[in-house]
């Protein structure tokens, strides 16, 4: 096998040095009765060329961007990835390094993550950002756990029912063994969270909303802040489409305590949902409560500037059962991709990109309304929105799949009241023609 460099001569010399008679002799401490009799039942090994053929076959069955037109976001968004990103991120000094525990020979990763932390706080209006979490859902669950640790006597949080349904499912999973409770805040008629419902909730450690929310609507973050303050609860927000912050007022400007987000839109391939990028950022006063790694700036013995992992006493390898979280490996390489993306688009590009996303989505919505769809919510949106479909759309949607077009996501299984409602998304990758073709195909006759 080409990854194993041992020649028969090497093996013989090495065994002589270690004092073993054979390779099997190396495993003498394993009781004989437990050793595998025969071999593992796995497929026969493939050559490089056979593997390529096999994987080509598997991957070519997939309905995927850019070959197919998938008008769907809901937590995973098709965006252009500038060529510089795959080129730079494939440098193996980045990809094949371990966690930067030895800072002298890890300055590339460390400066890259420090720059990531800086740009994320700039984008979201917060003060500290971690070196990354797994994805938005896990980051949100951790944010809520911070609130519960800060408010020790409470065991409840209020979470908008318009937070991504998978994220709410994850919060319940994370909460179950500790006995914490998530109370869902209902939606109001305009497609945003019904903040008046929070008034009746007592003893809540946090109020959490997603904005833009799962239906695409931009939430009233000032209202959420007021309601959280009135309950003496932490104000937590999440987001799944990071490009929105190229255009919208950021959560920090509304006084959010902790922001959890998904960074996939920043140059990271959708890749069937993972690995994405969990963003976790907060006001400075929560710095010691944050889970996971932080990079800090310092100086070396020669007074040269450099970077190190810092405040690591919060972490599991020192704190063990008292750690702020169990996280060890994070999604650091994807944080570096996001940093590269943000550096590439820059101040000018992120604004243009965000505006074009909103333009394309607005055009798609108008076209679909002309084709017989009804606007479900009047509330402003960024690049996705819900519509009520005309009769017969379900059948057309099935037929379109055969043409490689995916026309939105049915919302009924997530929100039973939203019968015949679909969630659509358009980003900069869809041309006017793509959108017009979709509208023509689904036009109610």
């Amino acid at each position: 096998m080409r990854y194993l460099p041992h020649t028969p001569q090497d093996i013989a010399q090495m065994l002589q040095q270690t004092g073993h008679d054979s390779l099997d002799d190396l495993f003498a401490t394993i009781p004989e009765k437990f050793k595998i009799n025969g071999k593992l039942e796995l497929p026969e090994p493939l050559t490089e060329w056979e593997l390529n053929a096999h994987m080509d076959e598997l991957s070519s069955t997939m309905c995927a961007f850019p070959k197919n037109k998938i008008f769907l976001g809901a937590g995973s968004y098709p965006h252009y990835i500038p060529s510089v990103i795959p080129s730079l991120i494939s440098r193996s000094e980045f990809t094949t390094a371990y966690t930067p525990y030895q800072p002298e020979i890890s300055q590339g990763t460390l400066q890259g993550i420090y720059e990531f932390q800086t740009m994320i706080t700039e984008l979201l209006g917060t003060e500290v950002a971690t070196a990354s979490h797994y994805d938005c859902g896990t980051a949100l669950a951790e944010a809520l756990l911070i609130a519960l640790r800060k408010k020790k006597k409470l065991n409840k949080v209020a979470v908008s029912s318009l937070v991504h349904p998978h994220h709410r499912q994850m919060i319940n999973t994370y909460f179950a063994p500790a006995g914490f409770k998530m109370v869902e805040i209902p939606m109001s008629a305009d497609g945003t969270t019904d903040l008046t419902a929070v008034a009746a909730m007592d003893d809540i450690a946090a109020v959490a909303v997603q904005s833009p929310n799962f239906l695409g609507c931009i939430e009233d973050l000032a209202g959420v802040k007021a309601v959280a303050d009135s309950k003496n609860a932490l104000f937590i927000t999440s987001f799944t489409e990071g490009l929105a912050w190229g255009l919208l007022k950021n959560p920090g400007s509304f006084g959010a305590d902790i922001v959890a987000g998904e960074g996939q839109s920043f140059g990271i391939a959708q890749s069937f949902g993972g690995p994405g990028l969990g963003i976790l950022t907060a006001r400075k006063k929560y710095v010691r409560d944050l889970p996971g790694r932080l990079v800090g700036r310092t100086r070396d013995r020669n007074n040269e500037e450099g970077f190190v992992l810092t405040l690591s006493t919060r972490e599991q390898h020192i704190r063990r059962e008292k750690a702020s979280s169990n996280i060890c490996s994070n999604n650091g390489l994807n944080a570096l991709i996001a940093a590269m993306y943000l550096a590439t688009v820059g101040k000018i590009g992120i604004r243009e990109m965000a505006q074009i996303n909103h333009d394309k989505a607005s055009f798609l919505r108008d076209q679909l309304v002309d084709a017989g769809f009804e606007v479900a919510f009047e509330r402003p949106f960024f690049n996705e929105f819900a519509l009520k479909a005309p009769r017969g759309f379900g059948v057309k949607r099935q037929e379109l799949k055969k043409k490689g077009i995916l026309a939105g996501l049915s919302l009924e299984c997530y929100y039973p009241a939203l019968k015949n409602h679909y969630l659509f998304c358009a980003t900069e990758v869809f041309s006017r023609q793509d959108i017009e073709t979709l509208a023509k195909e689904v036009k109610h006759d």
Partner: protein
Amino acid sequence: MTDTTGTGGLIFKEALLWEKSREGRCAVSIPTRDVPVAALDPEFVADAPELPQLGEFDVVRHYTRLSQWNFGLDSGMYPLGSCTMKYNPKINDVQAARPGFAGAHPMIDDELSQGALELLYNMEQYLAEITGMAATTLQPAAGAHGELTGMLVIHAWHEKKGHQRSKIIIPDTAHGTNPASASLCGYESVNIKSGPEGILTPEAVAAVMDEETAGIMITNPNTLGLFEENLREIADIVHAKGGLVYGDGANLNAIMGIVKPADLGIDIIHFNLHKTFSTPHGGGGPGSGPISVVNELEPFLPVPRVIKTDRGYQLVHNSPDSIGRMLTFHGHFGIIVRAYAYIRSMGAKGLTDVSKYAVLNANYIKAGLKDDLHLPYDRPCMHECVFTDKNQVDTDITTLDMAKRIMDYGFHPPTIYFPLVVHGAIMIEPTETESKQTLDQFIAAFKAVVKEAEETPELLKKAPHLPKVSRLDEVTAARKPILRG
């Protein structure tokens, strides 16, 4: 100092991104606007965020220079104990980047994602076969996330049986993630000490195992690189009191194809695909931490589950006893694809050879350095060996000094000061992909460092000398944290 790879090369300086920024530059190709501008209500709109403004070449040069300050596995030997820094095959990256996979949306209908579902289904079977388990979930994002998933499964299993328990047994050699994962589930850690030979004794477990204890978390081979010879007996003790045995699979690289963890009495085990199955660690992640379980625990695994039917592969979302969901979508698919490609390239014999050569390499290092470094447990080791700085105590040179100096010789240092039970630990895991020639260079370099410790200790105290920066002031970094520019 002959035949080593470390030299002082040309090292570039490079400013922070925003220091390079100039008003008006932009490195992205702005997509054509073929639809009208749709103005959003100004109430919602902010000024553009103050991101740096750079040209495309600025970005390229910036990250190229940064990369040159990193030591990667492709740069040189990376013998970090418990991290299994083996070669990351390039062909695996090719598979993950295939457009059909890279551009796949995770929420499209099952019939449109058959290739991905087939891959996930088969990968689950392979991992179950390797460990002797009945079922696998690929959802956990990393090893610690797999541990948490496993703990949630244990918690749910006890809950279903009607009597929740409050404690979990964790040996003193465990990774820090073990107690942290257990405490996220509300379990109190009961720490037990390894026996004099560096492995757990059945007596130590029997003394604390009771009907309020949910189970035990055990790493095998353990973090001293030793096979837990009493594991089956320990598992029987735990099972007899109604507990479960969780296996931390971080060190699976030593026993793949040699022994199946299920045969040793383990009920749940996690994998680190970024260790054993060759996916790149990415300077901190993303990893992937699937877990496999015995038959009785399958109903508790997170949803959705992939099943194979007459009409192809399907995702099943309803499973009444499931713990729920651990990640937004289907796990770290891009990492799983790479690990799948690795297993398909290696086959059964290849994976078994991996374990054999990994153990051979560790024993070779142990034999090569045991006259120079103190060996706290002189027993047959598995895939890694643990030394200490005890022989150097008279020279005032510590493990840290030797670790820093080995960088100058062109090697990444081993894991140091872990496991915690060994004072001044130096934990070396060479992995199977290093050749005898590289191991010989590493042994010679370490011997030279040990010699320097006696003859020119100042050289070690001030090491490293060749990297871009010397030792950094971590105290000021923690006292007055500067976490953004």
